């Protein structure tokens, strides 16, 4: 039931996700942050059972950090991180798959390029200009198809994302009152807005 969607604009990537943590008909939590920073300039919006979401993202984050510690602060590019994530999903696939679908976005400071990757639990991956995971794709892909173009500014990107949120809140059967929006650009990963503060109460 998770809604996760993202777009690439000129200079960065915006990822939005709903904040519900639920199983079947029960909502455990309404301020979950499903967009996990992997490094200073990459983040991953994830959908799937909370157990896999946390386990997988912790593993990836730790390995990205380990690389930086082992190699005198050298960072992995967005593309390298995405391929590492996909490789991890692929290796686990025929043993004990991680049931996570994700959108990985990042900004490479060295060559000033933004990258967005769509990945699913079967370890398929593709670089995209925009992407949607879950039922939300039925509602949001058409908005992206219509409104996305090369060379968007961050403000224009945010407007499109807000349009998607609006559409879901109007037409999607499952009520999703809270969305968190994050951006990654030259300055790094930061939160633009949230429905409920993810900080633990």
């Amino acid at each position: 039931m998770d809604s996760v969607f993202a777009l690439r604009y000129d200079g960065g990537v915006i990822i939005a996700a709903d904040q519900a943590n639920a199983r079947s008909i029960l909502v455990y939590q309404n301020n979950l942050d499903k967009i996990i920073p992997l490094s200073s300039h990459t983040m991953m919006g994830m959908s799937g059972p909370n157990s896999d979401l946390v386990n997988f993202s912790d593993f990836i984050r730790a390995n990205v950090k380990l690389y930086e510690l082992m190699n005198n602060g050298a960072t992995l590019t967005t593309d390298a991180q995405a391929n590492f994530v996909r490789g991890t999903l692929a290796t686990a696939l025929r043993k004990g798959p991680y049931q996570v679908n994700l959108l990985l976005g990042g900004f490479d400071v060295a060559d000033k390029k933004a990258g967005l990757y769509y990945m699913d639990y079967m370890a398929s991956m593709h670089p995209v200009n925009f992407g949607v995971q879950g039922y939300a794709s039925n509602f949001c892909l058409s908005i992206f198809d219509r409104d996305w173009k090369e060379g968007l500014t961050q403000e224009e990107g945010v407007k499109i994302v807000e349009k998607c949120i609006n559409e879901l809140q109007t037409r999607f059967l499952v009520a999703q009152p809270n969305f968190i929006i994050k951006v990654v650009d030259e300055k790094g990963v930061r939160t633009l807005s949230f429905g409920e503060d993810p900080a633990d109460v």
Partner: protein
Amino acid sequence: MARRYDSSTTTFSPEGRLHQVEYAIEAINNAGTCVGILASDGIIMASERRVNSPLLAPAKVSEKTYKISGHVTTCVAGLTADANILIEEARLSAGRYFHKYQCPMPVEQLVEHVCNYKQAYTQYGGLRPFGVAFLFGGWDSEYGFQLYQSDPSGNYSGWKATCIGANNQAGKSLLKNEYNKDEEGLPNLETALKLAVKVLNKTMDAAATSGDKFELYSMKLDKATGLCVHHILTKEEAQKVLDAVAAESASAGDE
């Protein structure tokens, strides 16, 4: 005194030395010389081609220069059989990195991996160290062209120009005097090639009369594709460089 502490790789001598490692380094001083020079637009690695007997079949592939991956090449001095093992390890390391991250392994990480592999043979297991020294020349997007030297101890360092194998001290002193003595920045490939030949002329017993006594390797970057271009000079190309060096040294005395 050394005799009691030199049989085992894993024993320090009272002076704090590892004699087996030092003996391994000595073994390389009998091998054919390799010169490596860093240029502004690439790397030159020149090696002496030693032919011990006229009955030897001509080599099908190089005995000194080996491609590790698309962006790293190595030049070997020492026991060829030992070198083969380490080259295999270097190729596996580069290949595994690319498989994991889908991008080329940073050069220093590759060199460090091979060196860590060598170091194990100086500390565990009672096996002798590898009798090989390497020159690694490579390119990556963060640091551009780089030249590294590593030896049996597992130590490595980055160089602008260096020399391994027979008469490497003479080679190094020539490089110290001649490498980029006049200008700022790095020399270009053409200058580096001529300097490499000059060094080999000095370290080899007799000045090379023909292009097949040397192996001259160059690495450049093709800006259009972003790929490294590896080239071992043909006999004709090598002869041209030799002639240019001979002409320069002939006129050098006139000034």
